[in-house]
């Protein structure tokens, strides 16, 4: 059965969490420095799997210093006291999800050694626990609300080096985790929207691209796969669909491995550089000329499992080594191809003494890395017999996902001893409790009543976070439907016809609704005015001045005349109405036109 949960990360609009630097992105790079990070072993002598995998890459990290970063972000000074404002927002959000506030808050260090944190860990604290949200789908649990530090911003990734900028490091983030309670992609989307509203309703969160990120947990059996950083809600459907297919494939693959009675106990890494030293394949040739070796393994019984209509283990394996900095693998389900000849394939098969149902794979890289890569591949092949592997994946633009790293274990959490534990003052707690923003449902009702709109319309306003714009425009012209139509029909239609609707600022909209209020124009003119504005760059209400009765009558009459053949037909009114409105170009109210048209038709038909 399909199950999904969400993890939502939202940047707060305060100063940074553990220093007094401002929270924004900066292009003002003032200096840089280089560091390396090492996996640290737990007291039991164990390393975190995700950390170990990162360490194989042996990357160095370059950090760019900006004016909004200080010694704290450089990992050159202990964290200051936690930002009180950020903490209060986290409490507020927790309370809105009916969480219990932790009696004493303890910041932890969560090991992250991909360089995105100069310290090698992210500071994070549990603030609220055991909450929930009620929706039309039922109750969704919110097990945790955490307050944590944003990571540094990745600027560039080169071979052996990643470049990060410190502007983003330390911006407060709220992390909201839902239970894996959702059974349908549309439910996931809805929950994400409600959570988004709750966060925005505090009025203290950052807006715009990258300020909110969703991680998606998808599982169809008992294994959790985390898809990190789904920034667009519209991708959720696709990702869920793709992940279900992928996970189903892995489950089928495990069955097939068992049916074929394939042993995955032992694989031997062989150096087959000699066979390929004169290969036409550019990748192989370049690899060898840079001192690399081609290493491969035989995969007895695996034919068709690496790539066929049903199975795609090859892609999973390629993913694993890509993370280590090896661009790809070659395997027999795809060969000969990529410049590797049938003759070479046969030689390799002979070398490995392969039978009909066997497969092989190989890769080229510097000898140590190639060996390390194959070790990870062998581990991944062994894991294939268990079906889905718990891991962290990343979304691609097309809704597919790719392997990022093993799912980090809880071993990677240890106390941030530099930050003292925090007890929440009961007065502050009471104050926050008494001034909580409206819940999602309350807000929907409020908007329905205030603007006389349907539930669906009200939800759309909230989901697209248009409450403020709406309120402002309504204060100028109190026709909720006209405002709704402009914001959610007219403008998107103009956009889909290829126009740059970014130019339609609040100023422009306010001007138009002012004109409406003063009866200079009628609301039917709005699409025409906006289109005209986008074409000419000017707003000219005179062009759209309401026609006087006589002129309007002339237009209607002329159109009736042109369509005399329709007289006495049933649909005449509807057909002519469209034609007239097109001609009128918003210079008359529809109801008025309709009234006159009716009368004139009646007259003619007599």
């Amino acid at each position: 059965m399909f199950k999904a949960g969400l993890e939502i990360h939202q940047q707060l609009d305060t100063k940074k969490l553990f220093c007094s630097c401002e929270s924004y992105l900066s292009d003002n790079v003032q200096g840089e420095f280089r560091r390396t990070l090492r996996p640290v072993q737990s007291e039991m002598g164990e390393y975190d799997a995700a950390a170990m995998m990162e360490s194989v890459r042996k990357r160095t990290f370059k950090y760019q210093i900006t004016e909004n970063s200080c010694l704290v972000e450089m990992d050159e000074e202990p964290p200051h006291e936690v930002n009180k404002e950020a903490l209060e927002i986290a409490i507020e959000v927790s309370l809105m999800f009916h969480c219990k506030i932790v009696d004493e808050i303890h910041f932890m260090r969560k090991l992250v050694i991909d360089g995105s944190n100069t310290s090698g860990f992210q500071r994070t604290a549990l603030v609220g626990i055991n909450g929930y949200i009620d929706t039309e789908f039922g109750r969704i649990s919110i097990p945790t609300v955490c307050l944590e530090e944003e990571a540094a911003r990745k600027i560039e990734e080169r071979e052996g080096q990643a470049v990060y900028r410190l502007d983003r490091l330390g911006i407060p983030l709220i992390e909201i985790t839902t239970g894996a309670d959702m059974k349908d992609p549309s439910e996931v989307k809805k929950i994400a929207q409600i959570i988004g509203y709750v966060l925005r309703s505090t009025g203290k969160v950052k807006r715009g691209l990258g300020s909110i990120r969703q991680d998606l947990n998808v599982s169809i059996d008992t294994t959790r796969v985390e898809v990190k950083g789904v920034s667009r809600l519209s991708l959720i459907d696709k990702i869920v669909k793709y992940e279900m297919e992928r996970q189903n494939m892995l489950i089928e693959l495990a069955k097939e491995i068992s049916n074929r009675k394939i042993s995955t106990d032992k694989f031997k890494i062989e150096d087959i550089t000699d066979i390929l030293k004169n290969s036409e394949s550019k990748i192989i040739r370049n690899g060898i000329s840079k001192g690399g070796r081609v290493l491969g393994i035989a995969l007895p019984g695996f034919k068709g499992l690496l790539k066929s209509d049903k199975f795609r283990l090859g892609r999973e394996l390629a993913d694993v080594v890509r993370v280590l900095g090896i661009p790809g693998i070659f395997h027999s389900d795809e060969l000969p191809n990529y410049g590797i000849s049938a003759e070479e394939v046969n030689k390799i098969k002979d070398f490995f003494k392969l039978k009909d149902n066997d497969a092989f794979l190989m890769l080229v890289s510097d000898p140590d890395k190639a060996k390390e890569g194959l070790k990870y591949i062998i581990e991944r092949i062994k894991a294939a017999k268990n079906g889905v592997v718990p891991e962290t994946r990343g979304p691609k633009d097309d809704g597919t996902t790719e392997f990022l790293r093993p799912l980090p274990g809880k071993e990677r959490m240890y106390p941030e001893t530099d930050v003292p534990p925090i007890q929440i003052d009961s007065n502050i707690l009471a104050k926050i409790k008494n001034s909580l923003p409206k819940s999602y449902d309350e807000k929907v009702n409020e908007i329905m009543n205030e603007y006389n709109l349907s539930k669906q319309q009200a939800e759309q306003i909230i989901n697209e976070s248009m409450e403020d714009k709406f309120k402002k425009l309504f204060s100028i012209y109190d026709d909720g439907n006209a405002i709704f139509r402009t914001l959610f029909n007219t403008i998107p239609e103009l956009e889909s016809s290829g126009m740059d609707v970014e130019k339609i600022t609040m100023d422009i909209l306010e001007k138009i609704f002012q004109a409406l209020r003063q009866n200079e124009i009628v609301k039917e003119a709005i699409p025409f005015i906006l289109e005209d504005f986008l074409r000419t760059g000017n707003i000219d209400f005179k062009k759209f001045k309401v026609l006087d009765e006589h002129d309007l009558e002339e237009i209607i009459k002329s159109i009736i005349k042109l369509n005399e053949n329709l007289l006495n037909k049933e649909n005449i009114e509807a057909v002519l109405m469209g034609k007239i409105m097109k001609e009128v170009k918003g210079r008359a109210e529809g109801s008025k036109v309709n009234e006159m048209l009716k009368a004139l038709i009646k007259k003619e038909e007599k």
Partner: protein
Amino acid sequence: MDFEPGDLVEIKTKQGTYRGVLMPKHIFSGDDIIIIKLENGYNIGIKKDDSFSMKLISKAESKKMIKKIKDHKKGLKVSVLGTGGTIASYVDYRTGAVKPAVSQEELLLAIPEIGDKYDIRSRNLFSIFSENMDVEHWKIIAKEVEKEFNDSSGIIIPHGTDTMSYTASALSFMLQNLPGPIVMVGAQRSSDRPSSDAYLNLLASLKLMETDLGEVVVTMHGTTSDSIVYAHRGVKVRKMHTSRRDAFRSINTRPIAEIGENVKFISDYRKKSGPIIPKIAMDERAILLYYYPNMDRDILYDIGSRVHGIIIAGTGLGHVSQNIIPVIRDLVRDGVFIGITSQCIYGSVNLNVYATGREMIRAGAVPLYDMLPEVAYVKMMWAMANFSNVKEIMTKNIAGEISERRVGLDYV
């Protein structure tokens, strides 16, 4: 029932039921707070209310490090004498407590680069933060170092950074004619952190073992980057920043060596010789005083009459107020040694330039050139215990603590 950190427990309060591993109490935690580590790895503090109850699920498991450093019995013989400090700080992942000690084995295990190059013999002398280090500790270290040199080409001493330069100075005076390098090494970020500077500093210390250096040096990050490490002369180095990796700076001189891939000597240095000449007695009746405006002459006299020597960190070129000078005269007459250094840190004292300085000299104060106040303090204890001509020893360059020249590029 007795609970101890590490036990898996279930706690019930009015708020709800929690399950997790019991953690040791944080010193800043509320009195009625119990800390547990939840299944998801997070710690939370739970307040004991009226309906509080705690139930044991299972006792703590005790696990021990099993890995041991291999006895190579090949490669360069190196001794590592641990003393404690940040470089040796480790978090107990089970309980979350920060422990002041990690075995030197663990530390060295974490540096795979060591390979088979060195035959490392390592042991802990003590496990203390360096602010607790005193003269007795210096003496123990000196004696142990002398012993280790019988069978080692060099000694590495991981040490807390706060007073590392004091210990380095003490060893520089106590042990002369060194048969190999004594390298003091510390860290500003503890070894349990992925970003710790300990590894690079230790690695650089090991590289120094292969050279012909015969001095006490302090090796710490040269910049904020993990790129180069400097070896500073033990009597010319000072911790100049509370928290940065590159907190240690050579004062009034350049570092002895810059260590990247290889060791590059960038100043003159003493080469190893031996046999070692130990003089480890110290006269502890010594104080280090920071002069400030309005210093009370009676208090100064009271303090001064209880000791055998005073180092004053004076203002500017080494001055104290006119008001104090009679006290200096009286104390010197009573046999107290009074040495003058500067709180400017950079530059040399000079008491010939202004009238106050000249009067100070007449009163018997001894200007100590560009010697750092802390170094002068340590040297004075050593000089008073081992020599009768204290003034002569104090003004003579013994271990590189006095530079004759200061060049333009060596400032900050």
